[in-house]
């Protein structure tokens, strides 16, 4: 079956202003709104559109994390994914271990495409997709803003510093999404009801033969250095005078 595997991560919602705990041991996340990582939502949307165009027959969504992550998997099923895999764990999963888990699932599911968000908006690592592609020994097209499938190949336009780069890659392959790839659909109420009946399989790290190891130890968390508020000027002439005085123009 022509299948697309989509990785999603449960993260603090995009609109939450996070705070560093006063004792520097972490970021306060108790009781804050959690959502699907926005880039992963774009990944799922793209997979659904490919399926709707006839380029794939099944979209499988996967996440790794604690029991609560099932909320995000249900949202993904409501968006239109056909089934969900939950690799349930309370351990800290660094990108390399996430990639090792995803490799196991890729070997099991044999997708023609694995699509992930380019980065999660909590750790901002931007690593997992590239690591999966390396372990899988398959092509990667990161930061995609356009994706076309033809005949065992994908043509991907990537957002790079110099502009837009187009790559041709053989399938199966790994793609990570950038913001402008698409605009994810809204979930409708009947779809939420339907999603409750869709299959959600729970797996353990043990059953996949993965023993995670935390290789980077966080020592302390701090708020970023703040810029001082400057002065307000009343018109263009005063602004130019101030900039001249500072020697920047």
């Amino acid at each position, binding site marked *: 079956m022509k299948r697309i595997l989509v990785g999603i991560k449960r993260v*603090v919602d995009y609109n939450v202003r*996070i705070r*560093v705990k006063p004792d520097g041991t972490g*970021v306060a996340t108790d009781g804050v709104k959690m959502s699907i990582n926005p880039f992963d939502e774009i990944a799922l949307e793209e997979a659904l559109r490919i399926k709707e165009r006839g380029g794939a027959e099944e979209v499988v969504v996967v996440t790794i994390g604690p029991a609560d992550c099932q909320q995000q998997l249900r949202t993904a099923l409501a968006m239109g994914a056909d089934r969900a895999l939950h690799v349930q764990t309370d351990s800290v999963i660094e*990108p*390399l271990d996430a990639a090792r888990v995803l490799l196991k699932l890729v070997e099991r599911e044999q997708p023609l495409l694995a699509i992930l968000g380019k980065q999660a908006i*909590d*750790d*901002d*690592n*931007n*690593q997992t997709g*590239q*690591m999966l592609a*390396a*372990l899988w*020994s*398959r*092509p*990667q*097209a*990161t*930061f995609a*803003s356009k994706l076309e499938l033809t005949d065992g190949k994908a043509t991907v336009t*990537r*957002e*790079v*510093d*110099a*502009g*837009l*780069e*187009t*790559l041709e*890659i*053989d399938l199966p*392959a790994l793609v990570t999404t950038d*913001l*402008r790839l698409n605009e994810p659909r809204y979930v409708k109420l009947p779809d939420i009801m339907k999603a409750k009946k869709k299959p959600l399989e729970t797996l353990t790290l043990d059953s996949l033969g993965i023993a995670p190891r935390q*290789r*980077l130890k*966080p*020592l*302390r*968390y*701090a*708020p*970023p250095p*703040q*810029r001082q*508020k*400057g*002065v*307000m000027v009343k*018109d*263009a*002439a005063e*602004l*130019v005078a101030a900039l001249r005085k500072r020697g*920047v123009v």
Partner: protein
Amino acid sequence: MSKVLIIAEHDGAKLNAGTAKCVTCASGIEGAEITVAVCANDASSVAAQAAALKGVARVLKLENPVHAHALAATIAPQIAAIAAPFSHLFGPSTTFGKDLMPRIAALLDSAQVSDIMAIESATRFRRPIYAGNAIVTVETEAGAKVIGTVRTASFEAAPAGGNAAIESADSSVALPAHTRFVSLSAAKSDRPDLQSASRVVSGGRALGSAEQFQILYRLADKLGAAVGASRAAVDAGYAANDLQVGQTGKIIAPELYFAVGISGAIQHLTGIKDARTIVAINKDPEAPIFEIADFGLVGDLFQLVPELEKLL
């Protein structure tokens, strides 16, 4: 002793400024011996530029026709094959380095420290998380190779003054053909490059249209500045997406930054907070951009921008 390998970013002719910033970052590791690797079809010109950077001890040329275009799929196995003697492998936190370094890390079974903004020791690094709203200090495992991307806005470029030895390294490792470069559509312009410009004029949604956005180009030309844009302006189609400044676009550190009609969403501020001087022009006196601007001016940008253009 720490032996650092920096993967050069270049376009085949010119070394990208991000590489010189990686050299400065690596120099922060006590006693670091710095090697720069240049993967290219013909590496001679780029290797010479890398060898001239102060602090670089050695430059390795890895020449192969497949490196005519930089592809993570082919550079990663090439670098992994020569990684054994090195304690640290760094690349710039540009789209080149972000794409490449995790692929190398996975081949070496190593973790990666993304967006290094400060070095505390050979095993301790500071990096931003949550769009720069928190800074975490991380420690790598003792004896493990450290793969890192370097947040270029946090470091000055290493100056000229080096005279490193240039050597050719064995590049006979088998490289895959499953990934092929098709094209690069770069917005050609005579203006300074946004990533490395010392002055930048950026516009936001308040510019209202792609045509009206053009008024910023006149101001930028007067200042010799690059032009940038907020995510809102890019999403609205007023500016090309490679002009986007912010957490999901370019993170820049110019001497002078003009934020015109930009309210100052946190994701935009993340991209400019290392700018030396920030000027904000906005009609809303409550706009968050004024909280971090060195000079704020409340008013109609369509009147103020042409005025500034005349006065400067």
